[in-house]
């Protein structure tokens, strides 16, 4: 790839990171750093952590960040590297950079406003056409609406036939292009660590932010029921076993603190993908200093 182009992308990347930090400073957030080497990540069906000795590299700083909320911090953010095995493609790197921010005494709706403000804040760094796109109001769509509009099936049937992910990836996501878009209210089965909606327990208070048809961020109102969380982790491990994957260790210390988590919301934002979109690059390779193949 054109090395001048890549150098320019790295310069833009630095400006974007600086601008992100400034945004959070302006909003009174505390920047934190949490350990990258953990005894346990949150066990998930389809995310395989990279083992390092008897520990694991983090797949997300989520668990430590929530423990910080338990200690009384109210607005925190972190930009750190995450590792996920066997994830490599145009929009995936096995080691990537994630921005996560958390607010206590808030729910996921506050995070939607944060996303709007953050995109607007970053827009001036791009070329005019891209800037216009990122400055525009984010539209919202529920997962149910998305399935009935583009999915040619219902969420219920897709979950039954195990085609939910495929339909999202092949039929729904490619249409989410016209403006930055928030896809919200995922079925409870796809809720992971999210709290369920009080009035609609079949739905989780979870949303994903899309721009240019690409998934940029995953956000939710945090589940703070340790029993329910442990049950979900066990269920995830069961699915892993049926897929021929290893059972993952339970994050016990996180679970023991979880009951003290105030109502909170958190979001995980892909920095490499954000830089790719703001730079107008074709894939992640063009916006990182080194791809794994170059090492």
């Amino acid at each position, binding site marked *: 790839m054109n090395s001048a182009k890549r150098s320019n992308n790295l310069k833009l990347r630095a400006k974007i990171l600086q601008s992100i930090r400034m945004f959070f400073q302006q909003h009174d957030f505390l920047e934190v750093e949490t350990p990258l080497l953990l005894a346990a990540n949150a066990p998930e069906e389809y995310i395989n952590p990279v083992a390092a000795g008897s520990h694991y590299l983090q797949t997300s700083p989520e668990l430590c960040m929530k423990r910080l909320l338990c200690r009384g911090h109210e607005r925190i953010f972190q930009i750190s590297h995450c590792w996920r095995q066997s994830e*490599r493609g145009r929009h995936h790197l096995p080691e990537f950079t994630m921005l996560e921010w958390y607010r206590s005494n808030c729910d996921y709706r506050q995070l939607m406003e944060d996303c709007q403000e953050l995109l607007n804040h970053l827009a001036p760094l791009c070329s005019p056409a891209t800037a216009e796109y990122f400055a525009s109001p984010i539209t919202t769509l529920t997962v149910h609406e998305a399935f009935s509009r583009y999915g040619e099936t219902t969420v219920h049937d897709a979950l039954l036939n195990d085609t939910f992910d495929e339909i999202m*990836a092949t039929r729904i996501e490619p249409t989410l292009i016209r403006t930055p878009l928030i896809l919200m209210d995922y079925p409870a089965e796809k809720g992971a660590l999210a709290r369920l909606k009080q009035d609609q327990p079949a739905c989780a208070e979870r949303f994903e932010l899309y721009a240019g048809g690409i998934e940029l961020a995953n956000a939710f109102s945090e589940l703070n029921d340790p029993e329910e969380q442990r049950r979900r982790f066990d269920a995830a491990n069961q699915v892993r076993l049926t*897929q021929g994957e290893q059972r993952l260790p339970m994050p016990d210390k996180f679970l023991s603190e979880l009951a003290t988590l105030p109502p909170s919301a958190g979001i995980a934002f892909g920095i490499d993908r954000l830089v790719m979109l703001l730079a107008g690059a074709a894939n992640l390779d063009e916006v990182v200093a080194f791809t794994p193949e170059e090492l």
Partner: protein
Amino acid sequence: MYTVADLKKGLKVTLDGAPYLVTAFDFVKPGKGQALYRTKMKNMINGTILDRTYRSGETFEPASLEERQMEYLYKEGTHYTFMDQQTYEQVVMEEEAMGDAKNYLLENLKVDVLLYGEKAIGVSLPNFVNLRVQQTDPWAKGDTSGNDSKPATVETGYVLRVPPFIEEGELITIDTRTGEYSTRVKG
């Protein structure tokens, strides 16, 4: 057996009993969801294109393709016959499977034939072949019309553009990758 981790452009696999070439590949993983391996596959015999999405754990049989050096013998109608000089085995290929190769075939030309089992499905020629010009307009010395090339028909019936100084009966080298005149063969 190939796994989804082996999928990439250019991989050749067997699907539904036919050899397929992976022409496009994309790794997709929706947030918190399963990894999906999306491919476009081209049937190497009839050219049909398929869109297929695979999941972790799926496997693929490699396509049993073999490339063998053979000699071009002759053509009958739209059938082109090649012979393996080691085994004297003959294979026949249809004109439509030949692509541009048919423009450059001279008796006894050594080529690489791509076989799927017993069936010849493709042929690769050497990058350059020498063919004699059968017909072309003579070069008028002193012609200042400014034309830098003229049409010529070579012995296979193929027509291409050649420099104005090339005469009928001359041997020229053609680049089979582009179909263009490369150089005049001296002597």
